[in-house]
Structure formats: C-alpha cells, structure tokens
C-alpha cells in the first residue's frame, strides 16, 4: 500500500526502511542471545561501499532513536575521514545529537579501538568489522568453519597459535586476537589491539559487531566472560609501551600512537583523541580497569 506522505521527506528516519531495520534488530537479539555466534543478516545497500563501515552503520541505524547521542571514532580518533563522513551521514539521516565526549554518548560506533574511558551500562558499542570469521586464517571454506564453530572444533586455531609461538617466540597477533566468548564460541573481536581485549571482559556496555561485506552480526552482551586464547605456559599480554609517556600529557597508561615530525623526530601520543583532549584539559576521565593494566603499573 502506498501512503500519500511517503515522499514528503527524502529519506526515512535513519535511512534504512523499517522492515529491514526490524530484520536487523531481530538478528541482533539472536546475536545477543548466543554470545559470540555469527548471525547472517541482510546487509542492505548503503550509500557507501561495503567494506567501509557498512556493518557498523547498519547496526547503528537499526538501533538509533531520536534521543540517542552519537559518537564515532576511527582508530581512536573522532577526526579521521571515515569517522567524520559517517558522523555527518548519521546526523543528516536522523538529526540526533552527536558528541566527541565518550562519557556523554549513548551509541559509540568504532573502527579498530575501544575507548580508553570506561563504558557504562547505558552505552552501546558498535564495531565495524572487516573479517568476522576468526577461523578464516586456518580454514578457507565457510561451510567448514561453520561446522567447526558448531562442534567447538578449535584445534586448528590453537595449532596456528602454537606455530606462531614456535616460529617467532610469541603469538604474533597485534590486532584481532581471537577470544572465547562465554566459554563457547571463538570470536574475532574486530581488529582492536590487544590493549583493548581485556576491556571486553565483563563489560557493562553492550558490544555489537557488524560485518557488512560478510553479512554477519555478532555480539557480546553485558557482563559476559571474554577470554583471549592462551596456553597454560604461553600467556596473552597487552602492548607494553615500556613507560614511555604521551608527549602532550605525560600520561603513561594509555595506548600510544607513533608520530613522526618533518624533522624526523619521533613522538608518542595517546591514540584515543577524546581521552587525550580530556587529559590535556586537566579533566580526570575514568579508565577501564583490568589485571593486565595493573601489571604494567607494577613494572613501571
């Protein structure tokens, strides 16, 4: 049935049509009900190409309401091209308030980082995922990986970790370190650095993952156990910046970027731009707490 006022505005609220939004929400509910399980979904066409954050955008647009406050980061930065464009798009399509303040946002979309600032139970964290299948590096056939997940047959994944340790003396996964969610499914935590992995564990916020190109959604519900894969004698560890301070704030306990200036000098600066700004303004943002961070403290 065609309604009279259908073309009164150019687009619907949040761009995607309501039926598709409902479909995505249903799939998200399923993803939350089975933590770490990849749910196939429609992945409708967007005005950006698949592989440029459509998965995250689908999730955001399916769950966003007029009262939400939206923040988006790309590699920790609010100001990168991908973040700016998607922020403009979401704002144009919904009219919701946008913010740079981690603490103020209700929906935070991200590419490759979790914020340094701790998340609360009113927040939803949305990830843009390039490769949702953690087993893809050891098994290239989708029907095989699905069977492996179904039967919790993860030996190949473990052998690949063993092989990395034997060849390089460490498990060489800088980003996207595989995690076991709720003691069952092995999940690709989108390529967030090791630094952020412990912050997924028992988080108060909801974590939703969208892979638009691969057409998969998955989730970590609040207060869910998320463990990085580790051997009994070869343990997971986070990046160690060896006590190097951020050159703008002097802060030592955050994920750092390397900056090269034109004169060839190297500087380290906090990667999370909002966290950096807050510290620079002499505010005291509250950081995630985890055993791995505390351990760095002991060493410092």
């Amino acid at each position, binding site marked *: 049935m065609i309604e009279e006022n259908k073309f009164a505005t150019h687009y619907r609220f949040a761009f995607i049509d309501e039926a598709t939004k409902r479909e995505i929400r249903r799939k998200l509910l399923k993803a939350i009900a089975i933590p770490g399980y990849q749910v196939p979904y429609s992945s409708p066409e967007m005005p950006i190409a698949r592989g440029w954050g459509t998965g995250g955008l689908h999730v955001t647009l399916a769950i966003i309401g007029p009262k939400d406050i939206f923040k988006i980061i790309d590699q920790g930065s609010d100001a990168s091209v991908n973040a700016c464009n998607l922020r403009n798009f979401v704002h144009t399509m919904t009219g919701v308030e946008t913010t740079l303040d981690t603490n103020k946002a209700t929906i935070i979309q991200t590419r490759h980082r979790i914020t340094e600032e701790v998340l609360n139970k009113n927040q939803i964290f949305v990830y843009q995922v390039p490769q949702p299948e953690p087993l893809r590096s050891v098994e290239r056939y989708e029907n095989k990986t699905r069977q492996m997940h179904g039967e919790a047959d993860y*030996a190949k994944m*473990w*052998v690949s970790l063993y092989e990395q340790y034997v060849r390089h003396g460490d498990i060489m996964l800088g980003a996207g370190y595989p995690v076991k969610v709720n003691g069952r499914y092995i999940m690709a935590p989108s390529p967030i650095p090791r630094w952020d992995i412990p912050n997924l564990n028992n988080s108060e916020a909801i974590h939703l993952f969208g892979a638009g190109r691969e057409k998969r959604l998955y989730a970590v519900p609040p207060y869910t156990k998320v463990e990085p894969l580790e051997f009994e004698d070869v343990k997971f560890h986070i990046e160690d910046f060896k006590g190097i301070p951020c050159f703008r704030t002097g802060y030592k306990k955050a994920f750092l970027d390397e900056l090269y200036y034109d004169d060839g000098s190297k500087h380290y600066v906090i990667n999370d731009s909002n966290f950096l700004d807050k510290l620079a303004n002499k505010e005291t943002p509250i950081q995630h707490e985890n055993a791995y961070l505390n351990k760095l403290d002991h060493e410092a």
Partner: protein
Amino acid sequence: MKHNSENWLLKVEGLTKIYGTANANSIEKTGPLFDSNICPETNAIVACADINFELFPGEVLGIVGESGSGKSTIVKMLYFDMEHADGTVLFNKAPYIGKNILKESNQSKRAIRNHLMGMVYQNPRDGLNFKFTSGGNIAEKLIMAGNYHVGTIRDKATNLLEKTEVPVLRLDDLPAHFSGGMQQRVQISKAIANHPPLLFLDEVTTGLDVSVQAKVLDLIRELQQELGIAMIVVSHDLSVIRMLTDRTLVMKNGRIVEQGLTDQILQDPQHPYTQLLVSSIL
C-alpha cells in the same frame, strides 16, 4: 594375549557401503561370484557389503585384496573419513560400550578419533597438514585431547619423534621438506600421540623404496610390541601382511572371501582368488 570371543576391542557387523541407488537385489547380484561390484539392475556400486569381523586388543589384523576390492573403504568408514555407512560397529571402550559408533554425533566421533584411534594414510598429505611444522602436526592431536601447555606438547612431540627415529632437530621444520619415509614417520608419530588402543594403517609403505619400506615396517612392528596397540593393516602387498599381521581378511569385489590366521592363509589358501594372490608373489 589370549583371545576369547568375549573380550574383543572392535566388533564389525554387516558393514555396508553402497554408492548410487540400490535395490533389493543389489547385494545379491554383486560380489566375487559375479566378479563385479556394480549392480546389473541399478548400476549402484557396492563398495563393500556384509563385512563382519572382530578385532582383539593388541591384535594385528590384515586386510588384503586387489585395487577396488573395498579394503580402504572399510578402514575409512571405521575412522569416520567416509560418512553414511550402514551396519554396526561396536567399540569396547567406555563410554561407547554397547553403542553403534557409526551412529554417534560428529562430536563423539571426533572424540573417538582423537582419543581412541590413530590413522596412517598412504599419502602423508592426507594425514598431515603441510602448512604446519611436524611438531605442530603432532600438537594438533595433543591439543584435540585437551593439552594446552606448550612445554608439555613439545616434550611429548620430541619423545614421539625420537621413538619414530625422526631427527629431533626437525621438530620445527615443515614436513613438506622431508623425505617420503620421514613424512610417513611423522604421520605415525601423530597417529600414536594420544596412545590410542587402535591404529589404522592404509597402504603405509606403498610408494616408498624397498629399504625405507623395511625400516618403516620394523618401526611399526616395534611400536606394536612396545605399546600393544591393536592395528588394522590394509595392503595389497602380501609381504607386508606376512610381516605385520596375526590374522588376515582376504577381500574381493567388496566381500570377504576368506579369513584366518595369516600363516595359514599364505601356506594353504582355500579360495581360488587367494590361491591366485599367493601364487602371484614375484
């Protein structure tokens, strides 16, 4: 070990595998009497039918027969490499006592494969992952049995390589860079990594040169005596059968045509096909 009819390890009853559409006469109209395993009515291929035997703990059973006689099919079905087999296979190990293991879930089947069985294929590429190191290949089996300690895994893998006479220095090398005989030894290490009570050997020496063949056979015989593993040895080579096995099944066109003690079968073959086989030894 003294065998009586009660203490079998593996009991196979009516094991059958048919490709294509079979009808009521498919099994009757195929077999050695017709010198064919293709059903004349439906063209279904009867890979094997009505296979019955028992295997006792620590016993070495040979299966001999020409190409296409169904001997590898039997072993592949028992190791669950081949699905949808008919018949009953009973495995006398807890918690599977009294259950037809062919009807177990995929998870249980994998548990049986990892804990209670080992397989050595003719082609090492089937049994080994050539992208992983030889240590990693053995680790895969150990990890599947719940071993998540790298130090222990490496100690065990080292021991296994020593036992199978692979230079321990090659622990972290890819099997792709090994000779055929060494690849076969790594495969054997992997197969026995979890001390399974049952080992399948499918044409393990085919394709190796004669001196390496002899060494691999020696190794298998030593391991068998040392660990007391029950084995099913599939081969078309009667000298392998003579050297390794206590008892032998002779197969033709998907059926067992004769079975008995290996010595007896080789000395005094009854079935015309077995007679032909024995008399054809070069």
